[in-house]
């Protein structure tokens, strides 16, 4: 019986310590040290939030680089319902979906062959909010974006390079291009001109 009271008191004490004090303390320190990151790495345009650098968005216009297929929400990139497709490797739906995406990619960016389409452009990401595409996937879209915006390809390529993140220390992870930041850079370029 005594143990039961000890257990209850211990539960309450540790709840306060680890459940209240700890996260509040981290939040306080985070706001002090890394105010932008702790608030969600939000990107502002025209006085309002245009998105988060870390959260991908839907892009379908020809003048924008397109992100990966997304299974988050009905239309994709719904940040309130992050999710992968969870389609199994032998599921007909998966294979049909990938086939359809491949066709779509080849229609959007003609002049390419299936073997040159990077796999990340036809597969849904794990979170449905993947902010990045592979450099190869960006490379594929340069011609389309350049022509849609009337820019020289090398200008677009430079922006792609500027928004490409390499492997950490050259080893860890995979390189990626942040689609939102790249598209923002394109819009900023357009606004400056």
């Amino acid at each position: 019986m005594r143990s039961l009271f000890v257990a209850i008191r211990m539960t309450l004490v540790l709840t306060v310590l680890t459940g209240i004090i700890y996260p509040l303390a981290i939040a306080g320190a985070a706001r002090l040290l890394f105010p932008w990151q702790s608030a969600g790495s939000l990107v502002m345009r025209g006085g309002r939030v245009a998105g988060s650098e870390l959260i991908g968005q839907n892009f379908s216009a020809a003048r924008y680089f397109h992100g990966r297929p997304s299974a988050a929400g009905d239309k994709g990139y719904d940040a309130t319902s992050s999710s992968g497709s969870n389609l199994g490797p032998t599921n007909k739906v998966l294979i049909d979906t990938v086939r359809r995406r491949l066709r779509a990619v080849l229609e959007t960016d003609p002049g390419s062959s299936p073997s040159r389409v990077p796999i990340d452009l036809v597969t849904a990401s794990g979170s449905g909010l993947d902010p990045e595409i592979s450099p190869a996937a960006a490379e594929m879209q340069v011609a389309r974006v350049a022509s849609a915006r009337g820019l020289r390809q090398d200008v677009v390529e430079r922006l792609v390079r500027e928004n490409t993140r390499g492997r950490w220390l050259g080893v860890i992870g995979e390189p990626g291009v942040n689609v939102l930041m790249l598209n923002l850079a394109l819009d900023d370029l357009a606004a400056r001109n």
Partner: protein
Amino acid sequence: MLWNAIFQVGIFFALVTLLSVPVGLYMSRVFSGQKTFLDPVLCPIERAIYRLCGIRPATEMAWSEYAIAMLLFSAAGMLLLYGMERLQGVLPFNPQGLAGIAPDLAFNTAASFTTNTNWQAYAGETTVSYLTQMAGLAFHNFVSAAAGIAVAVAVIRGFVRRSARTIGNFWFDLVRATLWVLLPLCIVFALVLVWQGVPQNFDPYVHARTLEGAEQIIPQGPIASQEIIKELGTNGGGFFNANSAHPYENPTPLTNLIEMIAIFVISAGLTHTFGAMAGDRRQGWALFAAMTLLFVAGAGVSIWAEQRGNPQFSAMGLNQHATASQSGGNMEGKEVRFGIVDTALFATVTTDASCGAVNGMHDSFTPLGGFVPLLNMQIGEIIFGGVGSGLYGMLVMAVLAVFVAGLMVGRTPEYLGKKIEAREMKLAMFYVLIFPAVILLGAMAAVCVKAGLAGISNPGPHGFSQIFYAYTSAAANNGSALAGLSANSVFYNYTLAFAMLFGRFMMKIPALALAGSLGAKKSIPPSAGTFPTNGAVFVALLVGVILIVAALTFFPADALGPIVEHLALYSGKLY
């Protein structure tokens, strides 16, 4: 690309190895009550907690008292969480105004977090208030891990003590595991995560207008503080539905590396704690080596299978070979920043340990790539394993291995000088038996009733894998899922909750009883006739016994799940 994979795995594991030694030795000091550098800060807090709770930390407990204290504490925490979930609608820290959670889901979630499983039948961003996240869920992330460490330490004491009646004080171990081990590591690494982009705030969800003019609602919250304990405590319950695949939980390759290290470091360290407390560091290294072998094999197969990709994609003309500018492989359900290697590695790590955090969707893995996580769990979460549970699970396997093969040296088998006799075998077998019993009976029920079959989202053998994986994950207290399974139903919520509770407590209790039984024994000094449990032969034996026990138990079911799916995939069959 092969070299990149080897470098990535190598760097990760080298860091784990390097960190595990000081962490392990530090823990052996912490739990022996020796001086540590954090004492000046933590001792006053510790004393205050003991005073508040009315605890005499120096009073040692017999194994049964220890078990009762652990059970009462878990029960109290589970009830508190259940209440908080049901009432979150009227409690503070709920800027989204989320309603109370349904009874079956609340029960499942309470069981899930109490048992360190963190199976999530809900999507965090649309179901759980900030208060429930941090005071309910994150609290359990701490204390279920701390309770695991406590039990492991108590079990170690049982193995190394001689003619002892007691195995330590649960409250002492619990408080020390929280204050000295989990909190300091969490504070440091949480801030590193924030630096890399993991949010930590109490803001309402952000409404953004996207470049194409749509509205995007971006959830916020105290993510970093919860993210790190989710890994360090091998809990795995994500703030968001997509778990560590979500860019807010795991924004960069560096955070991914940190999170993987966090999953392994305490469990790996505990092997050294064991060695140090046993007075023979090599005993700890032997367990470490056995775990390493199993880890490397799993990581190798998983990375290879995922990089090889889906033959159906190749049939469409897609090229899945990796190049410098894209990762290739089976990218369905994976994030670009992690690619194939870091996702397959994470999947191996998270299921080696009973973490269950995922940075890619296991449901979309290739059959072989997804078989590795399943097998890791079937082995019993002892490849480093859950914090605490991995070590005592491995020790039970060591007892079993020593018993079967130890006879072959012509002596009554002994481990650390303790004879393994009928009582120990009874407890070890109970421990070994309860695990497949829960999994097989649970999965059996699910394939027999409509409510179970209704959850399947992928037809064919993969559907069976989804069910089988769910009960394996629950019993193993892992928490990862083949997430297509619609598990938020009354049937799954209750059956999986009981699978988790049995998988946790029905295994912890025999482990403690085993410790009590061994602790009461005399220790026989080793001689040339004693089978040395700190050398290569033992490591090989241990790995063999672990693989054979797991393989023999689960092979038929595996054959109907991932194995046949793999064969079907390569013979061009779809479902």
